[in-house]
């Protein structure tokens, strides 16, 4: 398998002097072409920062970052990003949002009539794929959170990016909608074959979607461990109840707690109770 994204000894420092924070330290990770990798970890572990560095939205202070063997210099259409929210353009309809990348110069180079038609066809196809046909002419404000994220994903896919970066894209959705979105994104991954890097705080989501789960630890942000998900490539919701799935979930959750460096909820509750008794 060829390597799509190569993270080599990448470090990131925010601020300087007494405000200096080491957000990432010596990150090494190769993500294969078409792979689906999810990132989990306690807050402050730098998982979003790493994703943003891959997207070119932040720069790394040390190390190398390569896509297809070439160094990353800023954001580009080959690495589309899906955000948790507020990324759709409220002044454009759903269809206009999806076609947004066609209005950009890099999409207009040497464009032919056939290209325009193909683009229209692709927008229609994405609309259908995301189940948004009825909403094509609606404004984003008129859609539920789940529908809005479908539009954001379709828009990101429009330019056929080789890499899809997703920063807690379903974090604001309710549990039922989230399950539907999981199967949808797996379907998209199967059809379009992008390489996906996906940040989440939901361990179940991380396992269900991924080929590999990368667990990161905070202070400084670093990769703690990488788990290959022991499930067949074709995922089904029922697999969440298999012993393998549950065992991995338990293991990852326990490890996140260990690496978080914070007291467990029970410890904190104990302290609160003691305080209560003393008073």
């Amino acid at each position, binding site marked *: 398998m060829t390597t799509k994204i190569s993270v080599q000894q990448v470090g990131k420092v925010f601020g300087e002097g007494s405000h200096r924070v080491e957000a990432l330290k010596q990150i090494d990770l190769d993500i294969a072409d078409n792979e689906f990798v999810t990132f989990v970890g306690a807050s402050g572990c730098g998982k979003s920062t790493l994703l943003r560095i891959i*997207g*070119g*939205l932040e720069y790394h202070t040390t190390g190398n970052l390569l896509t297809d063997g070439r160094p990353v210099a*800023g*954001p*580009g*259409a080959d*690495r*589309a*990003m899906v*955000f*948790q*929210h*507020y*990324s*759709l*353009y*409220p*002044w454009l309809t759903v269809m206009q949002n999806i076609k*947004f*990348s066609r*209005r*950009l*110069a*890099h*999409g207009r180079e040497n464009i032919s009539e056939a290209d325009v038609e193909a683009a229209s066809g692709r927008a229609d196809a994405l609309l259908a794929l995301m189940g948004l046909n009825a909403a094509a002419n609606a*404004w*984003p*404000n*008129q859609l539920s959170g789940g529908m809005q994220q479908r539009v*954001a994903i379709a*828009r*990101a896919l*429009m*330019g056929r*990016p080789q890499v899809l*970066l997703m920063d807690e894209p379903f974090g604001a959705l309710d549990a039922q909608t989230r399950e539907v979105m999981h199967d949808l994104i797996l379907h998209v991954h199967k059809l379009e074959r992008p390489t996906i890097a996906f940040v989440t705080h939901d361990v179940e989501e991380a396992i269900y979607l991924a080929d590999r789960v990368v667990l990161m630890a905070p202070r400084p942000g670093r990769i703690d461990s990488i788990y290959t998900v022991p499930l067949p490539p074709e995922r089904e919701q029922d697999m969440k109840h298999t012993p393998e799935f549950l065992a991995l979930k338990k293991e990852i959750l326990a490890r996140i707690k260990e690496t978080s460096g914070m007291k467990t909820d029970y410890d904190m509750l104990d302290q609160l109770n003691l305080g209560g008794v003393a008073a």
Partner: protein
Amino acid sequence: MTTSRPRRPGMWTIRGPLSRRLYWLFAAFGLLAPLGLWWFMASGSDVDKVFLPGPLDVFNRLVTWYVEDDLLADMGISIYRVTTGFLISAVIALPLALLIGTFRPVQAVLEPLTDFIRYMPAVAFIPLVMLWVGIEESSKIAIIFIGTFFQMVLMMAEDVRRVPLAQIEAAQTMGANRSETINLVIFQAAKPAIMDTLRVTMGWAWTYLVVAELVAASSGLGYSILKAQRFLQTDKIFVGIILIGLIGLVMDQLFRLAHRKAFPWLYLRS
């Protein structure tokens, strides 16, 4: 034993409801009560009309102004001065605000300076404006400009800064270059807020009218108020003030209407 049943929240509940009928009733009261109070206070036999003219005196003055003193010409020239000063402000402020809100070096150069100038009193600029611009029409427009421009730039820059970062970054990861990000995302996203800023600053431009017409004017609502002051025509001062208020109100409503037409996605419910 007491029974309880669910009650509809009353109008004095915090952020409570108010029926449409009651809303208009209260609004009518809010508008008519001061008018009635004015009428009542002015109708006392021992009240000098120079001190407080009644509503009827003011109305009569409005009619004579219209018939004998060319009220429409005064209104016209004042509207011209305010809108011209305002438009020049807007045309210069908009690109500057886009740059201040987008590029930190531009912000560093211009924002502290603008913040400093906006606290300077526009009235105090009159001698300088007369010296530099003269006493022609352009000097009145210059005063309106000084009164509105600096506030406008700062408020618009803030509107630009409030564009969600995710909207900008989404465009960048779709391959948008810098000018495309500014034109197709930042400007478009900030437009509704910028138009609201224009509406608010338009009101401020009107408040500088009297100041502007201090400068060697021979016509206009502000000038007429100043002249009426000299002859103790209190009723005319009332007419001038009320007319400026009404014109401002009409323009405000026009801006609101245009906002609804231009940005329909913001008005989808209720």
